[in-house]
């Protein structure tokens, strides 16, 4: 049962052995790149959480 891999284009392959017939899909390449992920994982909260938040604090008006 574990060997039936219907719907998978290159069945029964072991890593590396199937070679270059099938290109690695884009999303798999993204997930296989820890440094790209590191960049995203630092940039997104820095922009949306920290920078946005600090901008809002700066924009709080003085009382009249």
């Amino acid at each position, binding site marked *: 049962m574990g060997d039936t*891999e*219907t*719907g*998978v*284009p*290159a069945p029964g*392959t*072991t*890593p*590396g*052995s*199937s070679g270059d017939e*099938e290109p*690695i*899909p884009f*999303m*798999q390449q993204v*997930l296989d790149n820890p440094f790209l992920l590191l960049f995203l994982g630092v940039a997104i909260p820095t922009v949306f959480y920290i920078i946005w938040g600090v901008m809002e604090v700066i924009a*709080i*008006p*003085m*009382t*009249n």
Partner: protein
Amino acid sequence: MAIFPPVQRVWWNEPIERTEILWITISLVWAIILFFMMPYWHLAGEQNLSNEAYKIRPEVFAERTEAMAEKYTVREEGDTGIPVVRPPAGSDIYMLGRLWEWWPILELEKDQTYRLHLSSMDYQHGFSLLPENINLQVHPDYEMVVTIKPNRAGEYSVVCNEYCGIGHHTMVGKIYVVDK
């Protein structure tokens, strides 16, 4: 297994089993409901915080609070010497937090709205209105404005629930809500 590299070189194209698809769909729908509850409550709910806030120096906030107290004090609370202030319905009312008291005591009319201004004279404090369990963070140098509408008469306590030093647990204030 999860402790070894995937056996297939390309795993991204593998089909996903029905149970998983179903659960992901249900979870996504629930996530969207969770998200839209917040904007929905801004439109349909009665408990939302305004974003109205100002930078303010503590002395200025204290002056305004004292001015209100001077004008509208109706009595003192027992033998504590703390004024009970009854500002007119619909007005701007002030409560300041400092080591270790909420000042002054306010007396409000039921079902009237007030613009409540909160700020701290020193450290951060936590405005915890009990037994309602309404909790707001009070900062020094910032003034927060919330419109409140007390809807039940009674005696309410304001407990500090942000740690503010050794006397933190003695920091209690009061708000009276009275029928007209």
